[in-house]
């Protein structure tokens, strides 16, 4: 692959898991941990109270885990997986966010994506957008 040294920033070759990408991975990692812990607690202790919302929590956790690992690896195959995970994440946060606003009854218990991630400072909405932008920016030119 040909490197494209567009800017003389030094160490950052255009790799998904390098430079600012490492910060993205760190944020994804924290969300993976937080969402996993939260979903585990919900599923283990009160699943029957809101099965749909808690299964969505688990899905969110899974998506964050996959995105974290694949972005951190940064190989071509893992970039493809990252893309899928992040697109699911974006669809999830928009769908669940909209549903939770339009029909709060359907989501009596909040998930990480409820109201577009308001409980997490809307980072869940911002994160997939940043993720897609980063994958776009670091895309190998000669593919």
């Amino acid at each position: 692959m040909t490197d494209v040294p567009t800017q003389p920033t030094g160490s950052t070759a255009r790799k998904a898991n390098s430079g600012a990408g490492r910060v993205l991975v760190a944020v994804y990692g924290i969300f993976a941990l937080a969402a996993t812990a939260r979903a585990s607690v919900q599923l283990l202790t009160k699943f029957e109270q809101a099965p749909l919302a808690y299964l969505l929590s688990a899905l969110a956790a899974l998506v964050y885990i996959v995105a974290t690992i694949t972005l951190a690896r940064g190989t071509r195959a893992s970039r493809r997986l990252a893309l899928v995970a992040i697109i699911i994440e974006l669809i999830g946060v928009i769908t669940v966010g909209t549903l939770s606003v339009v029909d709060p009854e359907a989501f009596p218990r909040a998930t990480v994506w409820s109201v577009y991630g308001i409980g997490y400072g809307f980072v869940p909405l911002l994160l997939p957008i940043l993720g897609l932008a980063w994958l776009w920016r670091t895309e190998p030119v000669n593919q």
Partner: protein
Amino acid sequence: MSGSSDDLSAGVLVAWAAANSGLSLGGHCSLLDAGLRTTLPRNSKSDSPFVGSGSVGRRADPTSMSMIDALAYVVIALAAVAVIWGLVTAVINRPPGKAQLLFAAGLEIVTVVQSIVAVGKLAAGFRPVELATTIGYLIVIVILIPIAWFWANAERNRFSGVVLAVAALGVLAMTLRLLVLWTPLA
């Protein structure tokens, strides 16, 4: 809210300001958080229509929690410094220096002590409203800095500092959340 916890509610208010600015990682229930943001300064009871359980923010017995509170405030202060430090080194385009890494290690140590003391209190019979959530937080909070430390040192540049800052911000947000969760089961 019991009268003696005014300073706490001020502290939590700051917390919520921080959360609003972008990084509340803590919510076990985001709608509840949203409700609390507006009601917290005065009150304490969750009256959000979206939640059925978990009144958060009430601090019934301050004396039994002083140790936890003190540790939490130390963690919050250290984490805040670590966040700023990480951002500063990023701005001046340098990788984290030795002092900064040692500082992060110090933050980790206090965080571990906090979790140990809290688990000790749980073992001694203290029951917060959300026991499982609280235990989850006490576990997750101690692994953030070590992972970030490894990740930051694997590629050392300005972004290493941001990685440490992100982890410290996570520790800060989770500690704020723990302070609220640490409410005795009525």
